[in-house]
Protein backbone atom coordinates (compact mmCIF):
# COMPACT_ATOMS: atom_id res chain seq x y z
CA UNK A 1 0.00 0.00 0.00
CA UNK A 2 1.50 3.29 -1.02
CA UNK A 3 1.62 5.76 1.81
CA UNK A 4 0.57 9.33 1.06
CA UNK A 5 3.46 11.72 0.56
CA UNK A 6 4.60 13.19 3.86
CA UNK A 7 5.29 16.71 2.70
CA UNK A 8 2.01 18.38 1.77
CA UNK A 9 1.93 19.66 -1.78
CA UNK A 10 1.95 23.44 -2.04
CA UNK A 11 -1.60 24.16 -2.96
CA UNK A 12 -3.04 26.95 -5.05
CA UNK A 13 -5.51 27.53 -2.26
CA UNK A 14 -6.01 26.36 1.26
CA UNK A 15 -8.99 24.09 1.85
CA UNK A 16 -12.12 25.69 3.21
CA UNK A 17 -15.70 24.64 3.86
CA UNK A 18 -17.03 27.86 2.34
CA UNK A 19 -18.46 27.24 -1.11
CA UNK A 20 -18.29 29.27 -4.28
CA UNK A 21 -14.55 29.73 -4.73
CA UNK A 22 -14.44 28.62 -8.35
CA UNK A 23 -17.54 30.54 -9.33
CA UNK A 24 -16.63 33.84 -7.64
CA UNK A 25 -12.97 33.79 -8.65
CA UNK A 26 -13.93 32.88 -12.20
CA UNK A 27 -16.41 35.73 -12.42
CA UNK A 28 -13.89 38.14 -10.88
CA UNK A 29 -11.16 37.20 -13.32
CA UNK A 30 -13.53 37.36 -16.30
CA UNK A 31 -14.76 40.85 -15.45
CA UNK A 32 -11.25 42.04 -14.61
CA UNK A 33 -9.89 40.74 -17.89
CA UNK A 34 -12.66 42.12 -20.07
CA UNK A 35 -13.01 45.54 -18.46
CA UNK A 36 -9.50 46.35 -17.27
CA UNK A 37 -6.77 44.05 -18.55
CA UNK A 38 -7.70 43.62 -22.23
CA UNK A 39 -8.17 47.34 -22.94
CA UNK A 40 -4.91 48.14 -21.11
CA UNK A 41 -3.22 45.39 -23.10
CA UNK A 42 -4.44 47.11 -26.27
CA UNK A 43 -2.47 50.17 -25.19
CA UNK A 44 0.62 48.10 -24.48
CA UNK A 45 0.35 46.35 -27.86
CA UNK A 46 -0.07 49.63 -29.66
CA UNK A 47 2.81 51.25 -27.80
CA UNK A 48 5.14 48.30 -28.37
CA UNK A 49 4.30 48.63 -32.06
CA UNK A 50 5.86 52.08 -31.88
CA UNK A 51 8.96 50.75 -30.21
CA UNK A 52 11.11 52.61 -27.70
CA UNK A 53 12.53 54.85 -30.40
CA UNK A 54 9.02 55.77 -31.55
CA UNK A 55 7.94 56.65 -28.02
CA UNK A 56 11.16 58.60 -27.49
CA UNK A 57 10.54 60.51 -30.69
CA UNK A 58 7.09 61.58 -29.45
CA UNK A 59 8.39 62.37 -25.97
CA UNK A 60 11.09 64.68 -27.31
CA UNK A 61 8.73 66.54 -29.61
CA UNK A 62 8.92 70.07 -28.19
CA UNK A 63 5.17 70.43 -27.68
CA UNK A 64 4.85 67.03 -25.98
CA UNK A 65 7.94 67.57 -23.86
CA UNK A 66 6.61 70.92 -22.69
CA UNK A 67 3.19 69.42 -21.89
CA UNK A 68 4.84 66.65 -19.85
CA UNK A 69 6.96 69.23 -18.04
CA UNK A 70 3.87 71.30 -17.26
CA UNK A 71 1.89 68.27 -16.01
CA UNK A 72 4.61 66.73 -13.87
CA UNK A 73 6.24 69.95 -12.67
CA UNK A 74 3.10 71.76 -11.60
CA UNK A 75 1.62 68.59 -10.15
CA UNK A 76 4.68 68.17 -7.92
CA UNK A 77 4.34 71.75 -6.67
CA UNK A 78 0.61 71.34 -6.13
CA UNK A 79 1.07 68.02 -4.31
CA UNK A 80 3.62 69.70 -2.05
CA UNK A 81 1.14 72.46 -1.22
CA UNK A 82 -1.65 69.93 -0.72
CA UNK A 83 0.58 67.87 1.60
CA UNK A 84 1.48 70.86 3.75
CA UNK A 85 -2.03 72.20 4.13
CA UNK A 86 -3.45 68.68 4.16
CA UNK A 87 -1.32 67.86 7.17
CA UNK A 88 -2.43 71.02 8.92
CA UNK A 89 -6.09 70.26 8.19
CA UNK A 90 -5.74 66.65 9.33
CA UNK A 91 -4.03 67.77 12.53
CA UNK A 92 -6.66 70.40 13.30
CA UNK A 93 -9.49 67.95 12.58
CA UNK A 94 -8.15 65.17 14.80
CA UNK A 95 -6.50 67.08 17.63
CA UNK A 96 -8.67 70.10 18.26
CA UNK A 97 -12.31 70.36 19.07
CA UNK A 98 -14.18 73.34 17.70
CA UNK A 99 -17.73 74.07 16.65
CA UNK A 100 -18.50 72.75 13.17
CA UNK A 101 -15.61 70.29 13.18
CA UNK A 102 -17.75 67.53 11.64
CA UNK A 103 -18.88 69.85 8.86
CA UNK A 104 -15.30 70.87 8.09
CA UNK A 105 -14.36 67.20 8.03
CA UNK A 106 -17.11 66.47 5.49
CA UNK A 107 -16.03 69.43 3.33
CA UNK A 108 -12.57 67.88 2.85
CA UNK A 109 -14.07 65.17 0.61
CA UNK A 110 -15.72 67.71 -1.68
CA UNK A 111 -13.18 67.28 -4.50
CA UNK A 112 -13.89 63.52 -4.44
CA UNK A 113 -17.61 64.08 -4.79
CA UNK A 114 -17.81 67.11 -7.06
CA UNK A 115 -17.63 66.15 -10.75
CA UNK A 116 -14.39 67.45 -12.22
CA UNK A 117 -16.08 69.44 -14.99
CA UNK A 118 -18.17 71.29 -12.38
CA UNK A 119 -15.07 72.07 -10.34
CA UNK A 120 -13.36 73.15 -13.54
CA UNK A 121 -15.89 75.75 -14.63
CA UNK A 122 -16.30 77.01 -11.05
CA UNK A 123 -12.55 77.52 -10.63
CA UNK A 124 -12.28 79.13 -14.04
CA UNK A 125 -15.02 81.66 -13.29
CA UNK A 126 -13.62 82.39 -9.81
CA UNK A 127 -10.08 83.01 -10.98
CA UNK A 128 -10.89 84.69 -14.29
CA UNK A 129 -9.64 88.31 -14.41
CA UNK A 130 -13.21 89.49 -13.75
CA UNK A 131 -13.96 86.73 -11.23
CA UNK A 132 -14.29 87.08 -7.48
CA UNK A 133 -10.76 85.99 -6.61
CA UNK A 134 -9.19 86.74 -9.99
CA UNK A 135 -10.02 90.42 -9.62
CA UNK A 136 -8.18 90.64 -6.30
CA UNK A 137 -5.21 88.74 -7.68
CA UNK A 138 -5.14 91.01 -10.72
CA UNK A 139 -4.70 93.99 -8.39
CA UNK A 140 -1.58 92.25 -7.08
CA UNK A 141 -0.44 91.76 -10.66
CA UNK A 142 -1.09 88.02 -10.70
CA UNK A 143 -3.07 86.46 -13.48
CA UNK A 144 -4.26 83.05 -12.33
CA UNK A 145 -6.74 81.83 -14.89
CA UNK A 146 -5.45 80.79 -18.32
CA UNK A 147 -1.87 80.54 -17.02
CA UNK A 148 0.12 77.78 -15.24
CA UNK A 149 -1.01 79.32 -11.93
CA UNK A 150 -4.54 78.21 -12.78
CA UNK A 151 -3.36 74.65 -13.38
CA UNK A 152 -1.63 74.75 -10.00
CA UNK A 153 -4.82 75.90 -8.24
CA UNK A 154 -6.92 73.17 -9.85
CA UNK A 155 -4.34 70.53 -8.92
CA UNK A 156 -4.24 71.65 -5.29
CA UNK A 157 -8.04 71.41 -5.26
CA UNK A 158 -8.17 67.80 -6.45
CA UNK A 159 -5.09 66.66 -4.52
CA UNK A 160 -6.07 67.96 -1.10
CA UNK A 161 -8.37 65.11 0.06
CA UNK A 162 -5.66 62.54 -0.70
CA UNK A 163 -3.20 64.42 1.48
CA UNK A 164 -5.67 64.80 4.36
CA UNK A 165 -7.14 61.30 4.32
CA UNK A 166 -3.83 59.44 4.26
CA UNK A 167 -2.45 61.27 7.29
CA UNK A 168 -5.62 61.65 9.35
CA UNK A 169 -6.07 58.03 10.52
CA UNK A 170 -2.45 57.92 11.68
CA UNK A 171 -2.78 61.10 13.73
CA UNK A 172 -5.80 59.46 15.40
CA UNK A 173 -3.66 56.43 16.23
CA UNK A 174 -0.87 58.38 17.94
CA UNK A 175 -0.46 57.20 21.48
CA UNK A 176 -0.75 60.25 23.68
CA UNK A 177 1.27 58.55 26.40
CA UNK A 178 4.37 58.95 24.23
CA UNK A 179 3.76 62.68 24.12
CA UNK A 180 3.21 62.74 27.86
CA UNK A 181 6.43 60.82 28.37
CA UNK A 182 8.24 63.28 26.17
CA UNK A 183 6.78 66.18 28.16
CA UNK A 184 7.64 64.64 31.52
CA UNK A 185 11.19 64.10 30.35
CA UNK A 186 11.40 67.84 29.89
CA UNK A 187 10.84 68.34 26.18
CA UNK A 188 8.98 71.43 25.15
CA UNK A 189 5.91 71.12 22.99
CA UNK A 190 7.76 72.15 19.86
CA UNK A 191 10.48 69.63 20.62
CA UNK A 192 7.92 66.90 21.26
CA UNK A 193 6.19 67.61 17.97
CA UNK A 194 9.29 67.68 15.80
CA UNK A 195 11.17 64.84 17.49
CA UNK A 196 8.44 62.48 18.72
CA UNK A 197 5.14 63.07 16.94
CA UNK A 198 6.13 64.00 13.40
CA UNK A 199 8.76 61.40 12.39
CA UNK A 200 6.39 58.40 12.43
CA UNK A 201 3.94 60.38 10.28
CA UNK A 202 6.43 61.04 7.49
CA UNK A 203 5.62 57.86 5.50
CA UNK A 204 1.92 58.74 5.48
CA UNK A 205 2.69 62.29 4.38
CA UNK A 206 4.87 60.92 1.56
CA UNK A 207 2.12 58.50 0.51
CA UNK A 208 -0.39 61.34 0.47
CA UNK A 209 2.03 63.41 -1.59
CA UNK A 210 2.48 60.57 -4.11
CA UNK A 211 -1.28 60.02 -4.42
CA UNK A 212 -1.98 63.74 -4.90
CA UNK A 213 0.89 63.94 -7.40
CA UNK A 214 -0.39 60.97 -9.43
CA UNK A 215 -3.91 62.36 -9.44
CA UNK A 216 -2.70 65.79 -10.53
CA UNK A 217 -0.69 64.39 -13.43
CA UNK A 218 -3.66 62.49 -14.80
CA UNK A 219 -6.31 65.10 -14.08
CA UNK A 220 -8.22 66.56 -16.99
CA UNK A 221 -11.71 67.89 -16.25
CA UNK A 222 -10.98 70.38 -13.50
CA UNK A 223 -7.92 71.77 -15.29
CA UNK A 224 -8.83 72.36 -18.92
CA UNK A 225 -11.28 75.18 -18.22
CA UNK A 226 -8.91 77.23 -16.08
CA UNK A 227 -5.68 76.38 -17.91
CA UNK A 228 -6.18 78.36 -21.09
CA UNK A 229 -4.50 75.44 -22.90
CA UNK A 230 -1.84 77.49 -24.61
CA UNK A 231 0.65 75.15 -26.35
CA UNK A 232 4.14 75.29 -24.76
CA UNK A 233 2.78 77.29 -21.79
CA UNK A 234 -0.31 75.88 -20.15
CA UNK A 235 -1.11 72.74 -22.10
CA UNK A 236 -1.26 69.56 -19.99
CA UNK A 237 -0.34 66.07 -21.17
CA UNK A 238 -3.85 64.56 -20.90
CA UNK A 239 -5.20 67.34 -23.10
CA UNK A 240 -2.53 66.59 -25.67
CA UNK A 241 -3.75 62.97 -25.75
CA UNK A 242 -7.25 64.22 -26.50
CA UNK A 243 -5.91 66.52 -29.23
CA UNK A 244 -3.85 63.71 -30.81
CA UNK A 245 -6.93 61.47 -30.74
CA UNK A 246 -9.10 64.07 -32.44
CA UNK A 247 -6.42 64.29 -35.15
CA UNK A 248 -6.55 60.46 -35.44
CA UNK A 249 -2.88 60.32 -34.41
CA UNK A 250 -3.38 57.14 -32.38
CA UNK A 251 0.34 56.46 -32.21
CA UNK A 252 1.10 59.83 -30.66
CA UNK A 253 -1.77 59.48 -28.18
CA UNK A 254 -0.52 56.02 -27.18
CA UNK A 255 3.05 57.19 -26.76
CA UNK A 256 2.03 60.02 -24.39
CA UNK A 257 -0.31 57.68 -22.51
CA UNK A 258 2.47 55.11 -22.13
CA UNK A 259 4.88 57.69 -20.75
CA UNK A 260 2.25 58.88 -18.28
CA UNK A 261 1.39 55.32 -17.24
CA UNK A 262 5.07 54.51 -16.84
CA UNK A 263 5.62 57.43 -14.51
CA UNK A 264 2.42 56.60 -12.58
CA UNK A 265 3.65 53.05 -12.04
CA UNK A 266 6.96 54.36 -10.74
CA UNK A 267 4.98 56.56 -8.35
CA UNK A 268 2.88 53.59 -7.21
CA UNK A 269 6.04 51.57 -6.73
CA UNK A 270 7.47 54.40 -4.66
CA UNK A 271 4.37 54.35 -2.46
CA UNK A 272 4.76 50.62 -1.91
CA UNK A 273 8.44 51.04 -1.03
CA UNK A 274 7.61 53.84 1.40
CA UNK A 275 5.03 51.64 3.07
CA UNK A 276 7.35 48.63 3.22
CA UNK A 277 10.05 50.82 4.74
CA UNK A 278 7.52 52.28 7.17
CA UNK A 279 6.41 48.80 8.22
CA UNK A 280 10.01 47.87 8.98
CA UNK A 281 10.83 51.14 10.67
CA UNK A 282 7.66 51.84 12.64
CA UNK A 283 5.72 48.58 12.51
CA UNK A 284 2.73 49.98 10.66
CA UNK A 285 1.79 51.59 7.40
Amino acid sequence: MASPPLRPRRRFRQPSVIPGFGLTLGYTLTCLSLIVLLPLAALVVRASGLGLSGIWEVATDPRVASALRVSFGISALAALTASLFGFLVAWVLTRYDFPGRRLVDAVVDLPFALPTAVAGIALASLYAPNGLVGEQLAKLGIQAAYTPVGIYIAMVFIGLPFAVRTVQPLIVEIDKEIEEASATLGAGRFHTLTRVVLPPLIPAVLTGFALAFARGVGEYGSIIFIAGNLPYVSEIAPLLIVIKLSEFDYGGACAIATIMLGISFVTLLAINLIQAWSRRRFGYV
Partner: protein
Amino acid sequence: MSEIATDLPRQQPASVVTEGGLVRGLLIAVAIVFLALFLVLPLATVFVQAFAKGWDAYLAAFHEADAHAAIRLTLITAAIAVPFNLVFGVVASWAIAKFEFRGKNLLITLIDLPFSVSPVVSGLIYVLVFGSQGLIGPWLIEHDIQIIFAVPGIVLATIFVTFPFVARQLIPLMQEQGTAEEEAALTLGASGWHAFRTVTLPNIRWGLLYSVLLCNARAMGEFGAVSVVSGHIRGLTNTLPLHVEILYNEYNFVASFAVASLLAGLALVTLGLKSLLEWRYAGDIAASGRRH
Protein backbone atom coordinates in the same frame (compact mmCIF):
# COMPACT_ATOMS: atom_id res chain seq x y z
CA MET B 1 5.36 77.67 20.25
CA SER B 2 8.03 76.25 22.56
CA GLU B 3 7.79 79.12 25.04
CA ILE B 4 4.16 78.43 25.66
CA ALA B 5 4.58 74.71 26.12
CA THR B 6 7.74 74.77 28.22
CA ASP B 7 5.96 77.10 30.56
CA LEU B 8 5.41 74.05 32.77
CA PRO B 9 3.53 75.21 35.87
CA ARG B 10 0.31 75.54 33.91
CA GLN B 11 -2.89 74.62 35.60
CA GLN B 12 -4.50 72.32 33.09
CA PRO B 13 -2.89 68.89 33.03
CA ALA B 14 -4.02 68.30 29.44
CA SER B 15 -1.80 71.08 28.14
CA VAL B 16 1.26 68.84 27.73
CA VAL B 17 -0.32 66.97 24.83
CA THR B 18 -1.68 69.92 22.94
CA GLU B 19 -0.55 73.30 21.76
CA GLY B 20 -1.19 76.59 23.52
CA GLY B 21 -4.56 78.23 23.04
CA LEU B 22 -3.23 80.95 20.76
CA VAL B 23 -1.38 78.54 18.47
CA ARG B 24 -4.41 76.27 18.41
CA GLY B 25 -6.75 79.07 17.42
CA LEU B 26 -4.35 80.23 14.75
CA LEU B 27 -3.98 76.76 13.22
CA ILE B 28 -7.74 76.22 13.23
CA ALA B 29 -8.23 79.58 11.54
CA VAL B 30 -5.62 78.88 8.86
CA ALA B 31 -7.14 75.45 8.12
CA ILE B 32 -10.68 76.81 7.87
CA VAL B 33 -9.72 79.80 5.74
CA PHE B 34 -7.74 77.53 3.42
CA LEU B 35 -10.64 75.09 3.03
CA ALA B 36 -13.15 77.89 2.58
CA LEU B 37 -11.05 79.52 -0.12
CA PHE B 38 -10.05 76.39 -2.01
CA LEU B 39 -13.07 74.10 -1.58
CA VAL B 40 -16.20 75.93 -0.42
CA LEU B 41 -15.83 79.02 -2.59
CA PRO B 42 -15.83 77.06 -5.89
CA LEU B 43 -18.89 75.14 -4.74
CA ALA B 44 -20.71 78.35 -3.78
CA THR B 45 -19.74 79.88 -7.13
CA VAL B 46 -21.64 77.15 -8.97
CA PHE B 47 -24.91 78.16 -7.30
CA VAL B 48 -24.25 81.90 -7.43
CA GLN B 49 -23.57 81.77 -11.17
CA ALA B 50 -26.49 79.45 -11.80
CA PHE B 51 -28.91 81.94 -10.24
CA ALA B 52 -27.11 85.04 -11.54
CA LYS B 53 -30.03 85.89 -13.82
CA GLY B 54 -32.83 84.69 -11.60
CA TRP B 55 -35.09 81.68 -11.38
CA ASP B 56 -36.50 81.84 -14.89
CA ALA B 57 -33.10 81.79 -16.54
CA TYR B 58 -32.12 78.95 -14.23
CA LEU B 59 -35.15 76.87 -15.10
CA ALA B 60 -34.82 77.65 -18.79
CA ALA B 61 -31.63 75.59 -18.83
CA PHE B 62 -33.71 72.49 -18.16
CA HIS B 63 -36.51 73.27 -20.61
CA GLU B 64 -34.45 72.02 -23.45
CA ALA B 65 -34.39 68.72 -25.32
CA ASP B 66 -30.60 68.42 -25.11
CA ALA B 67 -30.64 68.84 -21.34
CA HIS B 68 -33.31 66.16 -21.02
CA ALA B 69 -31.27 63.83 -23.21
CA ALA B 70 -28.17 64.48 -21.12
CA ILE B 71 -30.01 63.77 -17.87
CA ARG B 72 -31.48 60.60 -19.35
CA LEU B 73 -28.11 59.36 -20.61
CA THR B 74 -26.42 60.06 -17.27
CA LEU B 75 -29.15 58.12 -15.43
CA ILE B 76 -28.95 55.20 -17.89
CA THR B 77 -25.16 55.07 -17.61
CA ALA B 78 -25.24 55.04 -13.83
CA ALA B 79 -28.10 52.52 -13.83
CA ILE B 80 -25.90 50.06 -15.73
CA ALA B 81 -22.45 50.86 -14.35
CA VAL B 82 -23.33 50.96 -10.65
CA PRO B 83 -25.18 47.60 -10.44
CA PHE B 84 -22.46 45.99 -12.55
CA ASN B 85 -19.76 47.16 -10.16
CA LEU B 86 -21.92 46.31 -7.17
CA VAL B 87 -22.18 42.68 -8.28
CA PHE B 88 -18.54 42.57 -9.27
CA GLY B 89 -17.44 44.10 -5.96
CA VAL B 90 -19.42 41.66 -3.83
CA VAL B 91 -18.36 38.62 -5.87
CA ALA B 92 -14.71 39.68 -5.94
CA SER B 93 -14.57 40.36 -2.22
CA TRP B 94 -16.19 37.00 -1.51
CA ALA B 95 -13.47 35.28 -3.54
CA ILE B 96 -10.67 37.37 -2.06
CA ALA B 97 -11.75 37.77 1.56
CA LYS B 98 -13.22 34.34 2.29
CA PHE B 99 -10.48 32.18 0.75
CA GLU B 100 -6.72 31.93 0.98
CA PHE B 101 -5.04 31.48 -2.37
CA ARG B 102 -1.82 32.40 -4.09
CA GLY B 103 -1.60 35.57 -6.10
CA LYS B 104 -4.20 37.32 -4.00
CA ASN B 105 -2.23 40.54 -3.58
CA LEU B 106 -1.60 40.74 -7.29
CA LEU B 107 -5.32 40.36 -7.90
CA ILE B 108 -6.13 43.20 -5.49
CA THR B 109 -3.53 45.41 -7.18
CA LEU B 110 -5.03 44.69 -10.60
CA ILE B 111 -8.53 45.53 -9.37
CA ASP B 112 -7.18 48.84 -8.05
CA LEU B 113 -5.50 49.64 -11.35
CA PRO B 114 -8.25 51.92 -12.80
CA PHE B 115 -7.71 54.33 -9.89
CA SER B 116 -4.15 55.02 -10.99
CA VAL B 117 -4.97 55.50 -14.66
CA SER B 118 -5.68 59.01 -15.93
CA PRO B 119 -9.34 59.42 -16.97
CA VAL B 120 -8.24 60.40 -20.45
CA VAL B 121 -6.15 57.24 -20.77
CA SER B 122 -9.15 55.23 -19.55
CA GLY B 123 -11.11 56.53 -22.50
CA LEU B 124 -8.19 56.10 -24.87
CA ILE B 125 -7.80 52.37 -24.20
CA TYR B 126 -11.42 51.76 -25.22
CA VAL B 127 -10.89 53.73 -28.40
CA LEU B 128 -7.90 51.49 -29.09
CA VAL B 129 -10.06 48.39 -28.75
CA PHE B 130 -13.35 49.45 -30.28
CA GLY B 131 -12.50 52.52 -32.38
CA SER B 132 -12.47 52.43 -36.18
CA GLN B 133 -8.69 51.88 -36.16
CA GLY B 134 -8.89 49.72 -33.03
CA LEU B 135 -8.20 46.05 -32.43
CA ILE B 136 -11.70 44.84 -33.25
CA GLY B 137 -12.86 48.07 -34.91
CA PRO B 138 -12.99 46.71 -38.48
CA TRP B 139 -14.99 43.67 -37.31
CA LEU B 140 -17.45 45.96 -35.50
CA ILE B 141 -17.88 48.14 -38.59
CA GLU B 142 -18.53 45.03 -40.69
CA HIS B 143 -21.28 43.98 -38.32
CA ASP B 144 -22.61 47.50 -37.99
CA ILE B 145 -22.02 47.70 -34.24
CA GLN B 146 -21.10 51.10 -32.86
CA ILE B 147 -19.43 51.29 -29.45
CA ILE B 148 -17.17 54.33 -29.59
CA PHE B 149 -19.03 57.63 -30.06
CA ALA B 150 -22.12 55.80 -28.82
CA VAL B 151 -23.79 54.82 -25.56
CA PRO B 152 -22.02 51.43 -25.07
CA GLY B 153 -18.63 53.15 -25.08
CA ILE B 154 -19.78 55.67 -22.48
CA VAL B 155 -21.10 52.88 -20.26
CA LEU B 156 -17.89 50.84 -20.64
CA ALA B 157 -15.64 53.80 -19.84
CA THR B 158 -17.80 54.60 -16.80
CA ILE B 159 -17.61 50.99 -15.59
CA PHE B 160 -13.83 51.16 -15.96
CA VAL B 161 -13.31 54.31 -13.90
CA THR B 162 -15.66 53.12 -11.13
CA PHE B 163 -14.46 49.50 -11.24
CA PRO B 164 -12.55 49.40 -7.90
CA PHE B 165 -15.03 51.39 -5.77
CA VAL B 166 -17.13 48.59 -4.25
CA ALA B 167 -14.45 45.90 -4.22
CA ARG B 168 -11.78 47.95 -2.48
CA GLN B 169 -14.24 49.00 0.22
CA LEU B 170 -15.58 45.50 0.86
CA ILE B 171 -12.38 43.43 0.65
CA PRO B 172 -10.76 44.76 3.85
CA LEU B 173 -14.12 44.84 5.61
CA MET B 174 -14.88 41.20 4.81
CA GLN B 175 -11.31 40.16 5.57
CA GLU B 176 -11.64 41.67 9.01
CA GLN B 177 -14.98 39.93 9.61
CA GLY B 178 -13.41 36.56 8.81
CA THR B 179 -15.22 33.34 7.97
CA ALA B 180 -16.35 32.05 11.37
CA GLU B 181 -19.96 33.20 11.05
CA GLU B 182 -20.38 31.74 7.57
CA GLU B 183 -18.81 28.48 8.72
CA ALA B 184 -21.25 28.32 11.60
CA ALA B 185 -24.18 28.88 9.23
CA LEU B 186 -22.91 26.17 6.89
CA THR B 187 -22.44 23.67 9.74
CA LEU B 188 -26.01 24.34 10.76
CA GLY B 189 -27.11 23.26 7.32
CA ALA B 190 -27.45 26.51 5.40
CA SER B 191 -26.62 26.49 1.71
CA GLY B 192 -23.84 28.77 0.51
CA TRP B 193 -26.29 31.24 -0.99
CA HIS B 194 -28.42 31.18 2.14
CA ALA B 195 -25.36 31.85 4.31
CA PHE B 196 -24.38 34.74 2.08
CA ARG B 197 -27.84 36.28 2.17
CA THR B 198 -28.56 35.89 5.86
CA VAL B 199 -25.08 36.18 7.38
CA THR B 200 -22.65 37.98 5.07
CA LEU B 201 -24.95 40.51 3.48
CA PRO B 202 -26.28 41.97 6.76
CA ASN B 203 -22.66 42.27 7.95
CA ILE B 204 -21.54 44.27 4.95
CA ARG B 205 -24.69 46.23 4.13
CA TRP B 206 -23.51 49.61 5.42
CA GLY B 207 -20.12 49.28 3.79
CA LEU B 208 -21.89 48.24 0.61
CA LEU B 209 -24.24 51.22 0.70
CA TYR B 210 -21.33 53.54 1.40
CA SER B 211 -19.32 52.31 -1.56
CA VAL B 212 -22.33 52.31 -3.90
CA LEU B 213 -22.93 55.94 -2.95
CA LEU B 214 -19.39 56.95 -3.91
CA CYS B 215 -19.45 54.75 -7.01
CA ASN B 216 -22.66 56.43 -8.16
CA ALA B 217 -21.29 59.93 -7.63
CA ARG B 218 -18.28 59.14 -9.76
CA ALA B 219 -20.36 57.34 -12.41
CA MET B 220 -22.67 60.32 -12.84
CA GLY B 221 -19.88 62.87 -12.70
CA GLU B 222 -17.15 61.26 -14.80
CA PHE B 223 -15.85 63.65 -17.42
CA GLY B 224 -12.44 62.81 -18.87
CA ALA B 225 -12.94 59.16 -19.82
CA VAL B 226 -16.47 59.73 -21.10
CA SER B 227 -15.38 62.81 -23.03
CA VAL B 228 -12.85 60.76 -25.02
CA VAL B 229 -15.29 58.01 -26.07
CA SER B 230 -18.44 60.11 -26.46
CA GLY B 231 -17.83 62.17 -29.58
CA HIS B 232 -19.99 64.94 -28.09
CA ILE B 233 -23.05 64.36 -30.23
CA ARG B 234 -25.71 66.65 -28.79
CA GLY B 235 -28.86 64.89 -27.73
CA LEU B 236 -27.29 61.48 -28.34
CA THR B 237 -23.98 60.93 -26.54
CA ASN B 238 -23.90 63.85 -24.14
CA THR B 239 -23.90 63.10 -20.44
CA LEU B 240 -24.54 65.87 -17.90
CA PRO B 241 -20.86 66.77 -17.36
CA LEU B 242 -20.32 66.93 -21.13
CA HIS B 243 -23.42 69.09 -21.48
CA VAL B 244 -21.93 71.46 -18.89
CA GLU B 245 -18.76 71.69 -20.97
CA ILE B 246 -20.60 72.39 -24.24
CA LEU B 247 -22.74 75.13 -22.73
CA TYR B 248 -19.70 76.69 -21.06
CA ASN B 249 -17.73 76.70 -24.29
CA GLU B 250 -20.68 78.39 -25.99
CA TYR B 251 -20.46 81.17 -23.36
CA ASN B 252 -23.91 80.16 -22.16
CA PHE B 253 -22.72 80.51 -18.56
CA VAL B 254 -26.05 80.62 -16.74
CA ALA B 255 -27.28 77.42 -18.40
CA SER B 256 -23.90 75.78 -17.91
CA PHE B 257 -23.83 76.56 -14.20
CA ALA B 258 -27.50 75.64 -13.87
CA VAL B 259 -26.80 72.15 -15.18
CA ALA B 260 -23.63 72.06 -13.07
CA SER B 261 -25.69 72.93 -10.00
CA LEU B 262 -27.61 69.70 -10.52
CA LEU B 263 -24.33 67.76 -10.30
CA ALA B 264 -23.14 69.89 -7.39
CA GLY B 265 -26.40 69.09 -5.62
CA LEU B 266 -25.73 65.40 -6.21
CA ALA B 267 -22.26 65.86 -4.73
CA LEU B 268 -23.70 67.58 -1.65
CA VAL B 269 -26.28 64.83 -1.10
CA THR B 270 -23.55 62.22 -1.53
CA LEU B 271 -21.31 63.98 0.98
CA GLY B 272 -24.17 64.38 3.45
CA LEU B 273 -25.19 60.73 3.30
CA LYS B 274 -21.56 59.65 3.41
CA SER B 275 -20.91 61.68 6.57
CA LEU B 276 -24.11 60.36 8.10
CA LEU B 277 -23.04 56.77 7.43
CA GLU B 278 -19.54 57.41 8.77
CA TRP B 279 -21.01 58.94 11.86
CA ARG B 280 -23.71 56.35 12.59
CA TYR B 281 -22.10 53.14 11.39
CA ALA B 282 -18.38 53.90 11.55
CA GLY B 283 -17.41 50.37 12.58
CA ASP B 284 -19.57 48.67 9.95
CA ILE B 285 -18.35 50.63 6.93
CA ALA B 286 -14.64 50.08 6.82
CA ALA B 287 -12.07 47.85 8.36
CA SER B 288 -10.29 49.59 11.24
CA GLY B 289 -8.27 52.66 10.41
CA ARG B 290 -10.67 55.50 9.82
CA ARG B 291 -12.78 56.06 12.85
CA HIS B 292 -14.39 59.39 12.81
